[in-house]
């Protein structure tokens, strides 16, 4: 039977589970959008900026464990996706980006709204395609989903010329995906696993570092079993945070530049590290030369290119975290590590996470803490990038698997609102809190329009410090408080929300926090709270750039803090 390229794309999306997609149309996509009404199963969500479409697809992918789809027209539409694609690439999030392209005869002629999007996205996609024949389209979409969702997930872009969307071809059933150049190892090498287990059984001060790979492979139970059976403390990277219950006795929190003091101390004093599904990002390791100086390092990752990239590894195990941990658990001996755990507990008591104020000033950590109290941790938290992101990582107790969605690798301000929107579309029954920076919120604020149009009940908490806070903190610490261009003049965020028919409240004091959060929770739709917090609150602990993870700067004692 003959079908148009547009029909083939729609049917392929349905077949691959990509029924929901976020996008904005334009000239080069008119044939496709004209076909959409033939497929009521497809749900297109009209966003306000293509960056929002990509982040929404990313948020959707992270909460559903399947590919999220975004779509943009040729030229500026396609280039607007770039930040979102790069973000998904850095955090191994499976998204499918579909871009309209000028008709084939115009390619290479600098036609109106022509841009070389496959060229532009070459280094930020797992793979990309320019489809020059409608007969290739079904196979291309199938491959794209397969590549995006398997192995180490990542974004795949399909560039689709306008005339290919209109071209009619015979639509045949497809066989299996045949990609001779694409392989991934799921099962870890048994010799390596055996070697690793032998060392783990003998270790005195072992530590597990859990990364986003645990979340991606949904290896929560396997990780828990390993930790409990061998009594190994678990720390995590930012994106590994909800891979292990936050209230578990063996959980020692996040490591890294703003990691907890005792988490970093655990790593620096360990004699063995089991790094699983993490890539030794410099924000997690600090100075790599002085990272975990006494430890034998076991690195479990599905991407062989991550092994030895940033840190020399003693025992590499290439494979899917779930499979590898399962295999390890079969051989691992029961352990105790009493001395080690006692030591860590002592450090945990000696170095608690503290906030600066004792009075009634409104502190961001308190806000996050109260969101946790009221939701009882039963919420997906989506953050932007900056201080509020670190506070959200530190002050919310993540007891549910995969409950923190954040832009880790790229550190993209403006991720929060559209990603929260995508998360809500992906998990409509769940509570989704968007923890936004007042700076980042204004980078993608227009998605309030999408949220209103689609009635997405996203709860928005703006941590409004009136600053590009994280940068201000660096100016304070490393540039003698010269606050060059970090102070923000902000609009009235509540009025902005109201303009979009979204109710909101401004909160300026401690007592107002709980009732406001409660009100947001009780309201059946989207709700915004503008938390006007202490402007110069800093994120502690901090490991200064270039320093070793052992050199942890903790919050100065109150008297020093008040002398600021």
């Amino acid at each position: 039977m003959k079908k148009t390229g547009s029909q083939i794309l729609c049917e392929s999306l349905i077949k691959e589970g990509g029924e929901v997609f976020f996008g904005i149309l334009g000239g080069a996509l008119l044939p496709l959008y004209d076909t959409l009404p033939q497929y009521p199963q497809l749900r297109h969500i009209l966003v306000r900026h293509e960056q929002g479409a990509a982040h929404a697809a990313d948020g959707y992918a992270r909460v559903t464990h399947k590919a999220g789809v975004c779509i943009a027209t040729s030229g500026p539409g396609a280039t607007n996706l770039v930040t979102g694609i790069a973000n998904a690439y850095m955090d191994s999030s499976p998204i499918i980006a579909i871009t309209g392209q000028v008709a084939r005869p115009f390619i290479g002629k600098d036609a109106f709204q022509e841009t070389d999007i496959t060229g532009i996205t070459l280094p930020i996609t797992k793979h990309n395609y320019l489809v020059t024949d409608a007969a290739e389209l079904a196979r291309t979409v199938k491959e794209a989903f397969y590549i995006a969702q398997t192995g180490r997930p990542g974004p795949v872009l399909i560039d689709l010329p306008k005339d290919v969307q209109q071209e009619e071809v015979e639509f045949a059933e497809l066989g299996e995906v045949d990609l001779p150049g694409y392989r991934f190892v799921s099962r870890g090498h048994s010799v390596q696993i055996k070697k690793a287990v032998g060392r783990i059984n003998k270790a005195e001060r072992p530590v597990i570092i859990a990364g986003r790979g645990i979340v991606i492979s949904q290896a929560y139970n396997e990780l828990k079993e390993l930790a409990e059976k061998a009594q190994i403390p678990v720390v995590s990277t930012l994106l590994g945070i909800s891979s292990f219950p936050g209230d578990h006795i063996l959980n020692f929190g996040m490591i890294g530049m703003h990691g907890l003091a005792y988490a970093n101390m655990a790593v620096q004093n360990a004699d063995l590290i089991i790094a699983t599904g993490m890539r030794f990002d410099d924000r997690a390791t600090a100075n790599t030369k002085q990272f975990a100086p006494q430890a034998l390092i076991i690195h479990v990752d599905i991407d062989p290119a991550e092994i030895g990239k940033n840190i020399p590894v003693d025992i590499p195990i290439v494979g899917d975290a779930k499979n590898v941990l399962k295999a390890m658990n079969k051989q691992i001996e029961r352990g105790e590590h009493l001395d080690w755990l006692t030591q860590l507990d002592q450090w945990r008591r000696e170095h608690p996470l503290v906030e600066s104020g004792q009075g009634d000033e409104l502190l961001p950590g308190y806000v996050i803490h109260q969101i946790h109290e009221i939701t009882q941790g039963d919420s997906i938290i989506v953050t932007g990038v900056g201080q509020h992101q670190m506070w959200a990582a530190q002050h919310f107790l993540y007891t549910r698997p995969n409950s923190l969605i954040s832009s880790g690798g790229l550190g993209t301000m403006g991720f929060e609102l559209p990603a929260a929107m995508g998360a809500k579309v992906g998990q409509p029954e769940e509570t989704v809190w968007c923890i936004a920076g007042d700076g980042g919120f204004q980078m993608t604020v227009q998605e309030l329009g999408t949220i209103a149009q689609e009635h997405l009940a996203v709860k928005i908490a703006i941590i409004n410090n009136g600053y590009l806070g994280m940068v201000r903190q660096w100016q304070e610490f490393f540039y003698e408080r010269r606050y060059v261009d970090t102070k923000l003049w902000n609009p009235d965020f509540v009025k902005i929300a109201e303009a979009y028919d979204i109710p909101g409240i401004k909160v300026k004091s401690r007592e107002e926090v709980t009732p406001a959060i409660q009100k947001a929770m009780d309201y059946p739709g989207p709700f915004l709270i503008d938390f006007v917090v202490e402007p110069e609150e800093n994120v502690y602990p901090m490991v200064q750039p270039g320093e070793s993870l052992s050199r942890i700067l903790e919050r100065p004692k109150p008297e020093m803090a008040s002398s600021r």
Partner: protein
Amino acid sequence: MKHTLVALVENKPGVLNRVASLFRRRAFNIESIAVGHSEQPGLSRMTVVVNGDSARIEQVRKQLDKLINVVRVSDITAEDIVTRELALIKVKTTTATRSEVIQIVDIFRANIVDVAPDSLTVEVTGDENKLESLLELLRGFGVTEINRTGRIALTRGGTAQANRL
């Protein structure tokens, strides 16, 4: 140290760009790159010569291997390999020097592929040492143009790269 990477890649538009872009992105300087059809339909074989220490080369090899269009890639530097390069060299000649140039070309078992009143074009194949030595001698006469293919390489013996890996 110079490493020789040999990759079997899909013969599709943009593949050379993907490979070259990856070298650029990971800050590697390509010394030479040569590509042509392989024995298998739809696949090309690419030889890349690149400078760097073994750990970094291994990293770039793994990154190359991740490209969907790269079917196989190996660093064959340490293996028993045959390497060849072809060069075309245009040398200035006069009636007085022509026979001397021809003699040198003969010693190197190179060929003369074009003769003009004031120049000869020499075709030479061999490993880099041979090419460099010949060039060195010809420079004395005045070399006006050189075009080199870059290194191509195969491992010695019966097994093909595709089967070995």
